[in-house]
C-alpha cells in the first residue's frame, strides 16, 4: 500500500488548501471568463451603463440580434476587418522568431556552456544588460535606418528585431540548461565516435528537449504578445494581431469596433491555452530540470 503524503494531511488543512486553490483559480480565471462571455454580446450590453448585469443576461443583444448570444463581434473582426490576415502575419512572425532564436540559442548556448574561456561569462553578462533594456529603446534606434533603407513595414524586419531582442534571454536560459548537462555526456559521445556537432545533435539535444521546448515557449510568448516593436515597425497592411487589436480600440467613434477588439482578444488567448496544455509535461520538466540530477 502506498499512501501519498497529501492523504496524510489533517482534513481541516485539506479543506483550507482546496478552498484557497479554488478561490485563487476563480480570481485568476475571472477576467478571461468575463471577456469570453462578453465577446458574444453587443457593445451596449458588455459596456452597459445602466446595469452591469446586462453583460451577463444581454437584453440589448436579444433586442438587436434576436438571440442572447451573437457571433457578430467575431464575424466583424475576422471577416469584415480581416483579422485573419493579422493572424496569418502573427503566425509567420512567431514561427520565424521561435525557429531563428532557438537555432542560434541552442548552438550559442551550447558553445558558451562548454567554453573554458572567461569571455563566455562576459558575453552572457552583456546579453543580460541588453535583455534588461526596454525593447522600445532599441526600436527608436532602428527606426531611422530602417526608413532610410526602405526596410520599414516588412515582416522580416520585425522578425529580425524581435529575434535581436529575444536572443539574450534565449541564450541565457539555454546556457543554463546546457550547464546542467554533465560534460561527460559530450565527452563519452566524442570518444564513442561523434564529432562535436554529432555529439550535440545525437546526445545533447535529446536530453535538452524539455529545455528547448520551455525556452521556445518563452520566445513564442514574447513574439506573440509583442506590441512595441510590431506596432512601430509594421505598416497597416502587414499588422500582426496585437497592434490590430489596439487599432480596434483606438477608434471608439465607430460603434461595434470595441466588440471586435474583445472578440479578437479571446481569439488571441485561446491558442495559448491549447499550447500550454499540449506542452505542459515538457514545460514542467524543463522548469525543474536544474532541481533534480539526471
Amino acid at each position, binding site marked *: 500500500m502506498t499512501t501519498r503524503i497529501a492523504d496524510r494531511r489533517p482534513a481541516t488543512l485539506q479543506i483550507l488548501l482546496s478552498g484557497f486553490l479554488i478561490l485563487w483559480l476563480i480570481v485568476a480565471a475571472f477576467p478571461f471568463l468575463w471577456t469570453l462571455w462578453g465577446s458574444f454580446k453587443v457593445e451596449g450590453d458588455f459596456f452597459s451603463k445602466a446595469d452591469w448585469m446586462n453583460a451577463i443576461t444581454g437584453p440589448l443583444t436579444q433586442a438587436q440580434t434576436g438571440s442572447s448570444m451573437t457571433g457578430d463581434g467575431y464575424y466583424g473582426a475576422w471577416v469584415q476587418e480581416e483579422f485573419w490576415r493579422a493572424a496569418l502575419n502573427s503566425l509567420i512572425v512567431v514561427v520565424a522568431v521561435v525557429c531563428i532564436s532557438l537555432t542560434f540559442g541552442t548552438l550559442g548556448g551550447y558553445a558558451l556552456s562548454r567554453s573554458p574561456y572567461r569571455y563566455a561569462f562576459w558575453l552572457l553578462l552583456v546579453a543580460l544588460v541588453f535583455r534588461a533594456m526596454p525593447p522600445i529603446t532599441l526600436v527608436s534606434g532602428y527606426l531611422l535606418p530602417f526608413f532610410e533603407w526602405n526596410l520599414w513595414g516588412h515582416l522580416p524586419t520585425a522578425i529580425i528585431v524581435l529575434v535581436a531582442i529575444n536572443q539574450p534571454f534565449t541564450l541565457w536560459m539555454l546556457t543554463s540548461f546546457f550547464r546542467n548537462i554533465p560534460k561527460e555526456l559530450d*565527452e563519452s559521445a*566524442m*570518444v*564513442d565516435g561523434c564529432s562535436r556537432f554529432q555529439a550535440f545533435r545525437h546526445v545533447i539535444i535529446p536530453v535538452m528537449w524539455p529545455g528547448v521546448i520551455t525556452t521556445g515557449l518563452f520566445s513564442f510568448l514574447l513574439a506573440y504578445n509583442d506590441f512595441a516593436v510590431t506596432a512601430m515597425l509594421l505598416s497597416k497592411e502587414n499588422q500582426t494581431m496585437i497592434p490590430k487589436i489596439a487599432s480596434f480600440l483606438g477608434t471608439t467613434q465607430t460603434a461595434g469596433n470595441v466588440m471586435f477588439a474583445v472578440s479578437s482578444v479571446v481569439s488571441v488567448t485561446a491558442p495559448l491555452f491549447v499550447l500550454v496544455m499540449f506542452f505542459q509535461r515538457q514545460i514542467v520538466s524543463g522548469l525543474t530540470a536544474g532541481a533534480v540530477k539526471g
Partner: protein
Amino acid sequence: MARIQLRNLSKRWGSFVGLKPMNLDINDGEFLVLLGPSGCGKTTTMRMIAGLEDASEGDIMIGERRVNDLEPKDRDIAMVFQSYGLYPTMTVYENIRFPLKVRGIPQAEHHDRVMRAAAAVELNEFLERKPAALSGGQRQRVALARAIVRKPKVFLMDEPLSNLDAKLRVSTRAQIKNLHHELQTTTIYVTHDQIEAMTLADRVVVMSRGEVQQIGTPLQIYDRPANTFVAGFIGSPAMNLIAGEIRGGVFEAANVRIPGFAGVSDGKVTLGFRAEDAGLAPAGEIAAPVYSMELLGDSSMATVQAGGALVAIRAAKNFSAQIGDPIAAHVPAGICHLFDPTTGQRIDRRTVPAGKETA
C-alpha cells in the same frame, strides 16, 4: 591493439602544473594502472590520451602514430568514465549500440555485437531499461559493455569501480580482469585504490602531485618502493617510516637500535619496514610501551612509538596486551629499506643481508 608511448607529456593550466613531464611506454596488450592520491593528475593524464584535454607539451603515440592533433573519435579508443556518462534518453540496448551506429558499422552486425557485449557483463535482462532505472553497479556494466562493443585499440577506465559497494567492487574487478584476459586490449586504468591496482595491473604507475614516483610491477612496487612516498602509500598498513641515524653500521632512533647496516655510510636516514615483515619477540631491535592495539581479524596490529613516529607491528590474532605494556619487536636489517631523509629517494644497499628482500 597497440602500444602507447608518452614522451615528455605534461599539462599546465596557467602557472598550475597538473602533470610534470611524463615518459611512459605501454606495451601492446598490457594492463597499466595509474595509482595515486586524489588530485595527483591521473584523470588529466588519461584525458590527454583520450584527446579530451590538450597536452601542454610532449607527444602521445598510439600504435606508431602521433595522435596529439587527432580528435577523440579518430584515436580509436574506448573510455569508461568515473561517472559513467550513459545517455539518459536511450535504452541500455541503444546505449551499447551507439558507438556502432555513429561509426557506421554495417547495421546487420549491430544486434549480434550488442548482445555479445551485454552477455559479457551479464546485462541481458536490462536491455530495454533506461539508465535511470538501473543501480550503480548495473550502470557501471553498461558503460563497460559500451566500451567493449567495438574492438578499440585502447581501453581507458577512470575509477570505474569507485561508486560500487565493497562486494560488487570485488566481483566487477574480477570481471574486468577476465575481460582483459579475453580481449587482450591495451588498457589504462585509473584508481586511487591500491588493492585494485595490485590485483589488476601488469604494471603500476604511482603518481603524486603531478609527478611519476615509480613505475613497476605490483611486486616491485611493494617490495622495492622507490621513495618514501611510494613506501608510505602502498601496503595496508603502509610501510613504517622511522627517521634516525646510522653510525658504524647501526641504525639508531628513540626506542630503536638495528645493527647490520655495514657498508652504509654514516649519517641521517629514514628507515622503513613493513608491519607484516616484523614480529614480536621477547627482546628485539625495537622496544617500547604499547601505544594501541587493533584486532584486524586474521591478526592484530600493535602500535608503538619509535623514532618520533607511530610504528605498527603485526602480532598473532590472539596476542593481547594492555596500553602501556612494554613489548619488543624483532626487526632485522634484512627487512629494512633505507631512504634519503631529504630527497626521500631509496638508498640501495649493495650488500643485502639474507632476508625477505631477496625472496
